[in-house]
């Protein structure tokens, strides 16, 4: 990868992130944090590449295995708990 392109992407993504997150209602800051947590578990991609590389050493496989487990735990619990929390937010009209 070209470093300058990477930095460019980083710069743009950071500004987009700052702008979007600023608009998130404080009401939802806790679900927001679990959601970003689940999204940052995108590191699972790196972990798959390390574990699944042809001729990966035993060390790579073991470290990769733990990394995938940790990341998948985050993905699964992160998305599910965010949804569980959001389901609880109701307006008055929707109340039984």
């Amino acid at each position, binding site marked *: 990868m070209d470093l300058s392109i990477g930095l460019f992407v980083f710069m743009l993504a950071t500004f987009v992130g700052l702008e979007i997150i600023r608009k998130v209602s404080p009401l939802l800051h806790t679900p927001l944090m679990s959601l970003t947590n689940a999204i940052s578990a995108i590191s699972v*991609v790196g972990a798959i590449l390390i574990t699944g590389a042809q001729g990966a050493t035993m060390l790579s496989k073991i470290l990769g295995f733990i990394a995938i487990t940790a990341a998948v735990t985050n993905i699964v619990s992160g998305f599910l708990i965010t949804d569980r929390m959001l389901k609880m937010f109701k307006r008055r009209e929707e109340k039984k």
Partner: protein
Amino acid sequence: MAHLGSYLYIVSAALFILSLKWMNSPASARRGVFAGETGMLLAIVATVLANNIFNWQWILAAFFIGTAIGVPIAYIMPMTAVPQRTAMSHACGALAAALVGTAEFYRANQLHETLPAFVMVALVLETLLGYLTFTGSLMAMGKLQEVLPQRPITYRNQNTVNFVLFAIAAGLGVRLVLVPTDTWIFPIFAGLSLLFGVLMIIPIGGADMPTVIALLNSYAGLSACAMGFALGNNLLVVAGALDGSSGLILSIIMCKAMNRSFTNVLFGAFGQIQTSAVQAQQRPYRSASAEEASSILEAAGSVIIVPGYGLAVAQAQHKIRELYDSLMRRGVDVKFAIHPVAGRMPGHMNVLLAEADIPYDRLYEMDDINGEFGQCDVALVIGANDVTNPAARTDKSSPIFGMPILDVDKAHTVMVIKRSMNPGFAGIDNDLYYMDKTLMLFGDAKAFVTEIIKELPAKVEA
């Protein structure tokens, strides 16, 4: 196939951005979760399609175990424990990043592959941030779960020790960038990063946890981002940057809500200075029974309830809902005033009240409701302390001076449910309790609210 993979990555990055964007309102937020899930699925599929992946038994086994751990966590975890779960999740995310960095470092070395300098810089940052966030988050989790003492643990020259340690770790990191073949340095570097994570969190007190959690969130994102640079993967850079900026914004909001700076939170050891503060002289205050409290509430036209973490500790959310319901039925206008640092992580109190089925359009942020206290008949403070202390506005010598507070003291009548007159976590006496219009309601929050509710229906029949 490699091309298809990179196009799918672009779609996936767009979905992540949309996912966060839809979090701006509760109406679209669940769609945001769906977008995030789809983005994640696409990213995994794209990775598998675009690369020759071997060792499937390892990968699938890890997916299986991760799912088996993740599902129960998501469904069993009580909402009061969400801050701990979040800290654990920061730890898992950071660990994953650090281990991938470690594996990549050893892989390149074994193959005698010379990594470009910027890749080495990224690898070093990834592992440094990853390992320190891992242990730091575990410490934060221990404090939140109250396995570890909540008070700050301090010793002489703590900041110097931490700084020197960090400087050594950073120095070793630089050395690794310059001479990547020095593999013996790596374990020491990793060990120091792990140790620094522990030492960084122990001097931080329980009340500062919302800021720390947000900050660790940011670090975990940045280490994923560094992994993106190390592996040449733009999707990782985007997702990591989104997470990093989210954590940064949340920690800035938390710091502002406590009128503290980053450096003060990280190096200040708040709470430790005040624990030795001398008890103020006994001052007179008024107290009231549940019966009196309920008749005042019933007669009121408008009530603002100010919940704090004490409410969650007493598990009183559902009783508060009952009180809210019966007062609303009687035509009393009930609103909730939520201070940004109420609870143990950003937005925690909103989740706890939403769980008790209190409609979210009744939950008001500090800036939106502060103007209303002046016209409100009763402010009912439950389990909150420092965020209602008028000293933050007036008393320059108070440790919390300048902190934005809820203007509870402007209400016509103030009622405070509290166990005793003991000062709260920060050990600061609250002038609010000694005002003429303040009634202290002594007891456990849940038990007291239950009694107030019991007193209410009797009056309707009479």
